[in-house]
């Protein structure tokens, strides 16, 4: 494609760089503000660390879901999604921004502080036989090593897809597409395995004695919902800004909407599967996880998820027209992003306070701060990169894509 065309598909680098630096400063300041507020509310640091973990897992899951999307598109040799794939590639590559944000969790655990993960404190493992037995896996050094390992694997995979795809923008070499298609199946397997382990490490181990074999799939399903929602939202915004004009049509939104609907149904199916088995078997060590979420104010959050994360979007997106209308699709994308955040919040926060949900200025700062850092990373990645795979051999197919 000609130079003029590629310029039209790019956020001006100087602007993107400046905005990224600004957002990074704002984000770090907001995170500092969150830490100050929440340490003031709870000097043990438990409140801040749990709140931090919620947002860390939320934004990491968005990028993981984007990586999942990219690998799936290559595996399916999908033509329709080519024009929106670059945005997903950039989102996935943003895992590199989440990597350093692992540090507060790692430092807490390595310091033997049990405010977030009680198993990290030597005195609690000494008093608990089960924890003592789990030590071979759940110990600070191995936890941190695993966390670093996950991110190295994820960042390498995400960078691989972005690099080859961007190289194709310049060279137009169709064999790069074949390389990515060959790499995708093993990458998907590696991604799902590491993602499962990471969800067990970061979220499931908050409950010392609880386990659920479907937990990784649950996290994956939630990540898919969040990533599809964010992708739709970004594509709508970029198209409005004229950067994707002519590249995406209502047909692309229709298919993105179908994937969003499928992810919502998948999440509901997995969430209910986990709930039904535990509810039916009624074994105390399993029901302990649902117990705080079943009664008191947390029950309203649980019901809110059932309605807001499953029933409403499922029926709202079932019809054809809501998926073929940018405004309604963007609305449900925002809605599901909020719901996905609440889902992660619901996974984490009962570990801190099983009695009632807490939400305050500190949580807002933490979410906003991490979000700003995340967006800063995304904008930084957009510099000098087209937002569309310009010379992908299937781009013509994507441009001519029609749903009927």
């Amino acid at each position, binding site marked *: 494609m000609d130079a003029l065309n590629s310029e039209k598909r790019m956020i001006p680098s100087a602007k993107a760089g400046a905005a990224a630096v600004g957002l990074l400063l704002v984000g770090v300041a907001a995170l500092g503000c969150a830490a100050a507020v929440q340490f003031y509310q709870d000097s043990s640091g438990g409140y801040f660390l749990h709140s931090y973990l919620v947002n860390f897992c939320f934004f990491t899951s968005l990028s993981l879901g984007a990586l999942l999307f990219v690998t799936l598109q290559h595996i399916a040799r999908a033509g329709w999604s080519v024009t929106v794939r670059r945005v997903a590639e950039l989102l996935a590559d943003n895992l590199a921004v989440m990597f350093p944000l692992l540090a507060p969790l790692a430092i807490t655990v390595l310091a033997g502080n049990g405010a977030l993960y009680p198993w990290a404190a030597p005195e609690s493992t000494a008093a608990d036989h089960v924890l003592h037995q789990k030590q071979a896996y759940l110990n600070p050094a191995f936890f941190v090593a695993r966390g670093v390992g996950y991110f190295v694997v994820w960042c390498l995979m995400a960078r691989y897809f972005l690099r080859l795809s961007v190289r194709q923008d310049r060279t137009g070499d169709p064999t790069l597409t074949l390389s990515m298609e060959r790499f995708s199946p093993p990458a998907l397997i590696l991604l799902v395995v590491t993602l499962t382990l990471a969800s067990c490490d970061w979220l499931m181990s908050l409950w010392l004695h609880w386990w659920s074999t479907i937990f990784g799939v649950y996290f994956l399903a939630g990540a898919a919902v969040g990533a599809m929602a964010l992708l739709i939202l970004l594509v709508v915004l970029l198209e409005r800004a004229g950067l994707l004009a002519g590249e995406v049509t209502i047909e692309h939104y229709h298919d993105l909407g179908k994937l969003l609907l499928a992810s919502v149904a998948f999440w509901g199916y997995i969430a*209910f599967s986990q709930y*039904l088995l535990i509810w*039916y078997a*009624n074994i105390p060590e399993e029901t302990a996880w649902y117990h705080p979420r079943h009664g008191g104010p947390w029950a309203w959050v649980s019901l809110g998820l059932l309605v807001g994360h499953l029933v409403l979007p499922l029926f709202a997106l*079932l019809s*054809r027209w809501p998926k073929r209308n940018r405004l309604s699709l963007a609305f449900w994308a925002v809605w599901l992003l909020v719901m996905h955040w609440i889902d992660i919040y619901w996974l984490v926060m009962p570990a801190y306070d099983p009695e009632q949900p807490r939400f305050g200025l500190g949580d807002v700062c933490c979410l906003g701060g991490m979000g700003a850092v995340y967006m800063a990373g995304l904008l930084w990645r957009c510099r000098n990169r087209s937002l569309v795979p310009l010379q992908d051999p299937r781009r013509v197919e994507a441009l001519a894509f*029609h749903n*009927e």
Partner: protein
Amino acid sequence: MEAREQQRPSAGLAGLLAEFASAEAVRAAASALRNAGWTRWDVHSPFPVHGIESAMGLRRSGLPWLVLAAALAGVLLATGMQLWTNGIDYPMIISGKPLLSLPTSVPIMFELAVLLAALAAFGGALVLGGLPLFGHPAFSSLRFRRATTDGFFVFLSADDPRFDPAAAQTLLQSAGAVSVEPLQLDASGRQPPSAVYWALATTVVLALLPPVLVTWYRAGPKPNPRIHLIQDMDFQEKYLPQGSSPLFADGRAMRPPAPGTIAQGALDADEHLYAGKVAGQWATRFPVPPTAAIMERGKARYAIFCAPCHGLVGEGGASGITSARAVKRREPNWVLPLSLHTPTVREQPVGQLFHTITHGVRTMPAHGAQIPAEDRWAIVLYVRALQRSQNATLDDVPEAVRPRLRP
């Protein structure tokens, strides 16, 4: 039919079949026909032509609503079925769950919703698409066979209120038709062959047989056992007790244990405790001294294992819940359990009662495998207490309680 033929000068003309060169041409022709106000016509193409539905002015199909309605009906049906079977018709507590618990119903709701939605989608697509169709005038055209390979056709029916062969011919040709062919109505009419009706009627009658038979068999008592229609795994390719096998020299399928061996935990050397016998005669005394604790244990075991048939007091008949249900349902093979207060039973030595519980008697099944020997003795003790309670004299009642007795 005849009246219509009289009205119309072009008697016997079914319509005009126009062939077009390409998908674009047939789409343009569809727009032209629609703009000209024709209503009874259809497009036939070897593949779905993009944009043809808007060119023809087809409205959105109602099928999605049909499917949604069927799915919701499935949800309702599943909920109702669970409520009826588990909550009302045969209330049974499973795993300590409520009689109607929503979570257990969800998988059933899901499955039935999917099933009914799939059936509705399949059947609805056929019916809304006008199928099954037994004949169409276009089938008489040899040219029309190419509609499944590379031909694009418009069939303009003579039923159209503004049908006029000459005008239609002009319109189709001006819309770019390669050829226009008039098609005649089939002389045999549009009725499906009578064999179809017979086949349908036979199917309906046959399909009604099973529910009628089921209803008839359920309606009242029958002298014979119920028909065992669905055998499940009741009859299997396996050796039954006392069966024969060609594999062994003695021809027996059941292999005797090696001589002199005893299974672990099956020694049962204490004849009094495990067989209820002392020196080959029925024991008349308990092998362990009877205590209040053993009596309580016996009472609890009796309530679990014996009371369902013999009743809580042991008077037999229809006093136990199992027996009461069998009597209520008029089960033809049910034998009423015996009262434990008949002189025969009361005079039996404790060892014989123990033996009866262990090995069963007549239709009463053996309980030796379910109840440990100590518990069986506890039940015997409690049965003795029950027997005494039903045949008590004034001397058996403590002095302090006697004034409260009514004559």
